[in-house]
């Protein structure tokens, strides 16, 4: 299972760079979802990560196509982002992930040229208290009917990894389970211990 880490949205680049460095060997993809940072601050953060051992294909910035292009990393498009189709047209080589919440959205994103789908939320999560979770069967359906890698997100704890893996999903994305923990490195080890 691939492990995607999603940043908390309140990164303090100076304090947390060491945390990210320690997580690098265990992270398949680090998503920078930091709407409060400016383009220049995001680029500073990305360059600091690249200088600390992250490779460019290990990093994804949310929403900011411009920053992704200039930094040479991937972009994650969400509901409020530019459309996959338009981004693909202008940036044929950009790695594009798309956040989807239904099979219909997943199929549309794939048709428009997304490279990877982030589907959720699968379980009940504090990030989306008022939206009912999609559940494991819906995930299975998305995995079955799309050809792109599907990353499952939303309330995934280590004990649920085997259930996710059984659907054929490529990986899991974790936010609060790791980066919101007091000891993110210990938390990532709990996820690593589950061998699938």
């Amino acid at each position: 299972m691939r492990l995607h880490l999603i940043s908390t949205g309140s990164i303090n680049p100076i304090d947390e760079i060491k945390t990210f460095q320690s997580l690098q060997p265990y992270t398949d993809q680090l998503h920078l979802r930091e709407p409060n940072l400016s383009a220049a601050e995001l680029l500073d953060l990305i360059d600091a990560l690249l200088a600390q051992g992250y490779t460019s294909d290990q990093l994804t910035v949310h929403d900011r196509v411009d920053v992704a292009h200039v930094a040479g990393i991937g972009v994650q498009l969400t509901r409020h982002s530019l459309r996959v189709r338009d981004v693909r047209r202008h940036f044929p080589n950009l790695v594009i992930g798309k956040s989807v919440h239904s099979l219909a959205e997943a199929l549309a994103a794939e048709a428009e040229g997304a490279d990877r789908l982030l589907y959720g939320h699968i379980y009940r999560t504090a990030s989306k208290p008022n939206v009912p979770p999609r559940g494991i069967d819906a995930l299975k359906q998305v995995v079955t009917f799309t050809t792109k890698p599907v990353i499952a997100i939303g309330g995934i704890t280590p004990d649920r990894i085997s259930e996710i893996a059984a659907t054929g999903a490529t990986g899991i994305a974790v936010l609060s389970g790791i980066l919101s923990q007091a000891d993110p490195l210990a938390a990532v080890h709990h996820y690593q211990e589950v061998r699938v």
Partner: protein
Amino acid sequence: MTDHIIIGGGVIGLTLAYSLACQNESVVVLERGAGGQGTSRAAAGMLATDIELREELHALAARSRRLYPLLARRLERETGIDCGYREQPFLLKRKEREHLFPAVGQIDPRRLTTALMYALRTRGISIEEQVDITRIEESDDFIRVESNTGIWTGRTVTIAAGRGSQAMLATAGISIATYGVKGECLAVRLAGRPLRSILFDDSVYLVPKADGRILIGATELPHDETVGVSVAGVTSLLHAAERLYPPIRDAFIEEVWSGVRPQTISGLPYIGVTSSARRIFLATGHHRHGILLAPATAEVLSATVRLIQKEEVR
């Protein structure tokens, strides 16, 4: 023991070292002369179009062209050195046909190698100069490199020593087939009328650089590895340049130089593993395309040489 020994402090070796250093690997670079002062220094730094490349290299070249602006930006941020990356129109004249590419990239190879060396040294990577390799020997657990100035051991060694690679590899019982192709080049300055495009025909190219010089190159003399620039070479380049771009007659000559490109018998570079040695890797024989192909070569090789490490740590 170092993780990775890189032999050759030219653009290929330095780019590979930088790529590994960015991934927190320990690296040492061994260079026969001075870093960046061999064939890399002689290059014009055009990131050539696919028309000049064999089809097998198109994908690698495309990857490199994508990586160059990113590499230049990161190096500038780390070192403050502007590597002269820019894109400009490129006019290719071939017999009756003309082809205009709207934006072809170029880099300043001298600034690039200077920036790479600076970035490496800032990261604590040592670049040992004036080192003549006398023997490379692989054992089960490590690689041993002997030289006139000392002995190094590492997990892997990558030979990126241009024409010098063949003789070095022979000491480890590995044979490759390369030959030198000498190239001569000159730099001029032309006041008043700046040239805005790269001009390229069958016998000469003119490349306007970021610092205002125009490079005129390059002769191709297979199997010639002499040092120095011949009158015949300069004459033929200047005649061809004047035919292609008449205003060049008013330019002042600033510098002439030569270099020896490493060409292979097959015409394709050696990049990657060897069949007989586990710890010895190759990156040589890039001929005219060493600058262009360096970032993609480094990307491929840094992933390859790290595999051995992952196997062994496990």
